């Protein structure tokens, strides 16, 4: 079902944990649907110095969190904002169609964490056109 990359990131997730007094925190998902993703950012000079996550969810959700945090670590906030769920899924060697929403959650959690940081710093939040807490998973096929 899952690629080796997904299994690796699920079995050995990178960046699990929390950051005390994080500069930005973003949480998306819904316990009803079986997944919640929370991302903590440590930002310095517009660069993501550190990132941690906590995730309640399936293997793909945990792997997506792990991969997404890896992909934005050391990046500028603008770069991190531009990380798409597709890029996360691709970096994982693909996700089953019914699990694509997990990568969407990762994109959403990052966006929320970035905007949390911007709001805390008195900046205008960037506009997001998706609602990541939606009950309705996007199921392929």
């Amino acid at each position, binding site marked *: 079902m899952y690629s080796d990359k997904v299994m690796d990131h699920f079995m050995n997730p990178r960046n699990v944990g929390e950051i005390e007094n994080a500069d930005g925190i973003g949480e998306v998902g819904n316990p009803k649907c*079986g997944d919640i993703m929370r991302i903590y950012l440590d930002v310095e000079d517009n660069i993501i110095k550190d990132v941690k996550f906590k*995730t*309640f969810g399936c293997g793909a959700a945990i792997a997506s969190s792990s991969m997404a945090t890896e992909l934005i670590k050391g990046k500028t906030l603008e770069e991190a904002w531009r990380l798409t769920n597709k890029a996360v899924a691709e970096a994982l060697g693909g996700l089953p169609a019914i699990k694509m929403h997990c990568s969407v959650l990762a994109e959403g959690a990052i966006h929320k964490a970035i905007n949390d940081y911007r709001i805390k710093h008195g900046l205008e939040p960037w506009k997001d056109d998706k609602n990541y807490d939606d009950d309705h998973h996007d199921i392929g096929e």
Partner: protein
Amino acid sequence: MDSKRIVYMDHAATTYVKPEVLEAMLPYFTEQFGNPSSVYTLGRKSRSAIEEAREKVAKAIGALPEEIYFTGGGSEADNWAIKGAAFANRAKGNHIITSKIEHHAILNTCEFLEKQGFEVTYVSVDENGVIDLEELKNSITDKTILISIMFANNEIGTIQPIEEIGRIAKERGIIFHTDAVQAIGNVEINVKDMNIDMLSLAAHKFYGPKGVGALYVRKGIRIENLIHGGGQERKRRGGTENLPGIVGLGKAIELATADIEGHNARIRALRDRLLNGILEKIPYTKLNGHPEKRLPGNINVSFKFIEGEGLLLLLDQSGIYGSTGSACSSGSLDPSHVLLAIGLPHEIAHGSLRLSLGDKNTEEDVDYVLDVLPKIVQRLRDMSPLYENFIKGGR
């Protein structure tokens, strides 16, 4: 793989075929392969083998051989019973009663019949998964032609008061079907004493082969065919008989019902050791299903704050095979309809684990699971934002 040990605890999903059963089947693939409908010797031998299997199935549930029809599995038996009774009795009425916790083979069949103009009442269950008998009685109308209530639930293991339901159905002259796919070999069944008119079973749940099952239909009950065709199964189920499968079913049910009490005592002792260990070692854990009236090998527990699919994958890495009612493992949106029906909130239902024990499980298996499982649950909790909230005093 972290480990060489393999602990299969998903017998409610399917079982391996016992060596004796496979051995009984083997001649029928390559040597005694004749079509049972043929008049020549080779065909007549096949016919005898099938009738022998039929007798074994009949004996196991207290039926007559001529009341047993072989099918391609439990789902076909369920579909046949429900659609067969519905289409044959349409003139009498269009109302069917079943429960909220039936297998999808029943529920989705009922949904199809609703599209065909039938009305279906889905009776509730209590927090232990036991059918509400009052609600059942009250939902009977003049138009009720069929009651279908499963013998034992596949997820939470709860055993229903089948005799009482049989009595209610009989009093009102309504056909009573029970899906006994999970019950065979685990509960003593006598269809006459229990007033059961139809009963479904599937070989692969009691160490027989996949792809073969049976439907018992009491003499005198008329149902429409589901698989129309040749004259097989006394013209009631078309299709060349699955000869080795039927022989395997016969052998397997004979073995499974030879000593139900002894089997149960052994499995239940193991199960209780495992269950008590889990409840003791892992906090914030809840048993699902009836504490006593449950299948001997069934454990269904919810671990708060975590989700089941991840749990299964980590258990898999340690060679432990179980199952979950989490939606994430099935590709549907909602977690198990059974867990929701007994009143679990979605997030608790997502964190459920079913371990179903079988004949080859040992005390060492139990101890191994009791060693591995608590660590895995803790590991997932340490990743869980819900657990973080809880520990920090929020929720």
